[in-house]
C-alpha cells in the first residue's frame, strides 16, 4: 500500500479524536478520544517503520532490522498509555465521589 494512504487514515482518526475532545462533556469519553488519538499515531509509526524496508535490506551494508525503533516506540507509547489510564481513571472516580458528576465543567473545582 502507498504510505500516504496510511498517512491520511491516521490523520482522519486523529481529527475524529480531536472533534470528540472538543464536542463532548463527559470526562470518560474525552479520555477515550485521547486514546483514539494515541492509536492513530501508533498506526502511523508502524506504517512508517515498514517504509524503507526493501531499500535497507538491499543496501551495500545491510541494516539488521530496519524500522525496529519505530515499533519499539509504539510499544513504549502503549506502556505510557496504560499508566496514564490508571491514574486518570482514579482521578475521575475521585471526582465522581465528591461531586457526583463526570461533567468536565465541574473540573475547575479541583483547584479549591
Amino acid at each position: 500500500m502507498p504510505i500516504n494512504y496510511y498517512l491520511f487514515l491516521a490523520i482522519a482518526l486523529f481529527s475524529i479524536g480531536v472533534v470528540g475532545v472538543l464536542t463532548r462533556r463527559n470526562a470518560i469519553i474525552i479520555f477515550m478520544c485521547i486514546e483514539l488519538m494515541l492509536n492513530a499515531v501508533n498506526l502511523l509509526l508502524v506504517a512508517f517503520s515498514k517504509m524503507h524496508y526493501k531499500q535497507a535490506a538491499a543496501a551495500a551494508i545491510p541494516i539488521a532490522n530496519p524500522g525496529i525503533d519505530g515499533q519499539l516506540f509504539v510499544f513504549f507509547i502503549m506502556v505510557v498509555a496504560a499508566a496514564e489510564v490508571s491514574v486518570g481513571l482514579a482521578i475521575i472516580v475521585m471526582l465522581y465521589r465528591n461531586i457526583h458528576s463526570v461533567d468536565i465543567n465541574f473540573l475547575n473545582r479541583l483547584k479549591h
Partner: protein
Amino acid sequence: MSISAILFWVLSVAALFSALMVVTSRNPIHSVIWLIVTFFAISGHYILLNAQFLAVVNIIVYAGAIMVLFLFVIMLMNLNKESEPARHRWLQLAGGVSGGALLLVLVAALKDTELKSQQSLMLEGNTGLIKTLGQELFSNYVIPFELSSILFLSAMVGAVLIGKKD
C-alpha cells in the same frame, strides 16, 4: 485488486466508522464498545503490516485491559443516556468545524509530499516478529524497559493513593 488491498480498505472503513460512532453515540457504554471495534480494526492493520507482536499487544493491553477498566468505571458510576451531559449546540458545531479544519490543513499540507511513491511493505519482513523485537528490547532498549517498570510502579501507587477514601 489483491486480497491485502481489499482487507486494507475494509479495515480502514471499519476503523473510521467505529471512531465516528465513538464520538457520536450518546450512551457511554456504546462508545466503549465502538472504541473496542476501532482497536480491533487497528490490530488488523498491524497484522497486514506484519507487526504481529504489536497486533497482539494492542488487543491484550488496549481492548483487553484498558477498555475493561473504562467499562468498569462507567458501570460503577451507572452512566447512561439520560445522565449524559451535552454541550450547547453552537459549541458542538464549533468543535466539529475546528476538527474538520485540522483535518483539511493536515491533508492539504501532506498531499503533495514526495512520500507518494513510497510503499509500505505488507505481509513480509521480520521486524515485527516477537523474536527480533524481544532481542532488541532486552539488548539496546533494556534501560527504557526497566524504567517503564518504575513508571508502572509509580502509576500503581498514585492510583491507589488517589482512589483511597480519605
